[in-house]
């Protein structure tokens, strides 16, 4: 006598379950597509909006890096008594030697008591908070400054009374083009260049820049002041900035004197505070659409169970237990939401890619969120399938078989 039990290996059981669910789900393909559409839209909304947010963020970060996330300002620090500790003269060289450092731009301390005016007609009491900066050769290159008009101070003109204006200075003095003259410390200087706005070095926007050679020659009594370094702009390889900050401080003053090292713009904060509102919106739309999608799956499964009472009766007669029937319909519902979730990810990623392409941004997706969104969709499907499946499991074989 054969004694048979329903003890199949797990793999076989799962294969049977998936196969049966597949048959059920693909039997009426148009209905399956419609029922899983809600889930697809929910997942797509989330994936698309979080992807667009991520692309925005990637674009923003790329822009920040270009501006000066990798630009550090090394300046004299203060000792315990609040006295400024001057940077040693060798600092630019030692810093330039450090790995990861690409360029060093040096500004000297400006001669004291200098006032800047558009011309001699402006009352001397009407100072306008413009600063004078003294640059060593190549300093503007290190900052990656660009000229709106004109050019910089070079070997050909470094011994002449010429000046480069920051964007804000040009505006306040009303200087529109190179060739104008301005009055610095009662001396006429020719304007040879006007800089574009420098978000990476904002204090230079309101500074008039003159060359070191001219300054040293013109203020022989202040040579000591002028030779002291007021600030060094150190451009490093992208991404290395944080790790070499400490090294810069040491290289700038080997004897251990206090040195101030700052990121030129406070971009590290900007990096972490990116726009989360789009992601939140996507999450909200996604959750609502998933809920609606779950209901449409539940609704379809109830209809399916009613329509397939004959099949349920048959399967019970063939030896399916109530829990076999329940699992079959829950798996079928889960499969619907799996299809929906996959379609949603594809649609959402496609939409995010389209938007990123149209905006000229790099495509970025929230990769960790994709499996989570998909898992949430499948979970919704399982929950939606529970009630119809339980109804199906509760049918007695004779009830189910009677109704055709």
């Amino acid at each position, binding site marked *: 006598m*054969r004694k*048979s*039990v*329903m*003890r*199949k*290996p797990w793999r*076989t059981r799962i*294969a*049977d379950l998936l196969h*049966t669910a597949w*048959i059920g789900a*693909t*039997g*009426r393909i148009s209905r399956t597509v419609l029922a899983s559409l809600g889930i697809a839209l929910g997942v797509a909304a989330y994936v698309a909006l979080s992807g667009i947010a991520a692309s925005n963020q990637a674009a923003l970060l790329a822009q920040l890096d270009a501006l000066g996330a990798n630009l550090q300002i090394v300046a004299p620090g203060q000792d315990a008594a609040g006295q400024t500790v001057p940077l040693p003269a060798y600092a630019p060289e030692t810093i330039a030697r450090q790995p990861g450092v690409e360029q060093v731009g040096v500004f000297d301390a400006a001669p004291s008591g200098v006032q800047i005016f558009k011309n001699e007609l402006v009352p001397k009491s009407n100072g306008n908070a413009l600063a004078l900066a003294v640059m060593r050769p190549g300093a503007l290159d290190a900052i990656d400054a660009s000229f709106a008009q004109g050019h910089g101070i070079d070997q050909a003109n470094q011994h002449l009374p010429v000046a480069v204006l920051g964007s804000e200075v040009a505006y306040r003095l009303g200087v529109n083009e190179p060739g104008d003259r301005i009055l610095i410390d009662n001396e006429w200087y020719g304007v040879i260049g006007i800089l574009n706005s420098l978000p990476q070095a904002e204090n230079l926007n309101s500074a008039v820049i003159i060359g070191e050679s001219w300054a040293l020659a013109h203020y022989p009594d202040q040579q000591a002041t002028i030779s002291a370094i007021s600030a060094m702009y150190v451009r490093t390889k992208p991404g290395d900035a944080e790790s070499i900050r400490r090294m810069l401080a040491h290289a700038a003053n080997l004897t251990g004197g206090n040195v101030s090292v700052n990121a030129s713009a406070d971009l590290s904060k900007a990096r972490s505070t990116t726009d989360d509102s789009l992601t939140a919106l996507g999450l909200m739309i996604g959750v609502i659409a998933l809920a609606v999608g779950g209901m449409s799956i539940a609704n379809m499964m109830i209809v399916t169970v009613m329509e397939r009472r*004959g*099949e349920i*009766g*048959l*399967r*019970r*007669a*063939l*030896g*399916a*237990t*109530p829990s*076999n029937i329940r699992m079959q319909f829950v798996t079928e519902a889960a499969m619907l939401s799996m299809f929906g979730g996959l379609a949603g990810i594809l649609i959402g990623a496609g939409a995010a890619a389209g938007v990123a392409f149209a905006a000229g941004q790099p495509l970025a997706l929230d990769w960790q969120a994709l499996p989570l969104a998909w898992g949430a969709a499948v979970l919704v499907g399982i929950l939606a399938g529970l009630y119809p499946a339980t109804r199906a499991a509760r049918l*007695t*074989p*004779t009830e189910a*078989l009677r109704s*055709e």
Partner: protein
Amino acid sequence: MTDALLTLENVTKSFPGKDGSMLEILHPANLTIGRGERIAIIGPSGSGKSTLLSMLGTLDMPTSGILRYDGENVAAMGERRRSILRAARIGFVFQQFHLIATVSALENVMVGLQYTDLPRRQRHERAVAALERVGLGGRLNHRPSQLSGGEQQRVAIARALVKQPDIIFADEPTGALDTDTGHAIIDLLLDAERDNASLVVVTHDMTVAARFPRRLHIRDGVVTEITGDDHA
């Protein structure tokens, strides 16, 4: 009585009527079905044939009395063990075929073994053999809608035969078919004797019933044995 497969001991079945009182559809019945026995149950519609068949097939439980399968009280088995019993040892054939419309004949037959412990490959081999046995070896991949009524019923018989059951229950298997096709179907069912399977067929067609050595008659819930062939 050592070869008794199924026994009914004073089994009744009642259903709640419209006014809430219980309606006894099947009056106390005593019956023994032996191994390899071939039985036709005949009677007018509404006489309780299908109710009796459902209980014999363990699809429904008696209101009172004891149904034994292989000596064991079926009511005491519990839903799960009854399902296992049906999966492994009982075959069913229905008037409306009950094939799954969206899959092939082969898949339909394989469903007959889905709830057993057989691995998929073996189920496949057995299903092919069963379809060949009912003469549908060339139509394995046809869907039910591509088959005639007689062919669909043959798929259903293959689905019952494939598990090599102890017993096959057929509820009006020829009811939806013309006479010739119906007799061909009965031929196939009677052929199950090869496997020493018992066969219980419910029918209202006397020419079909006449082909069975043992016939039971039901009228108004009372089961009577008809002996001999003279009533056919």
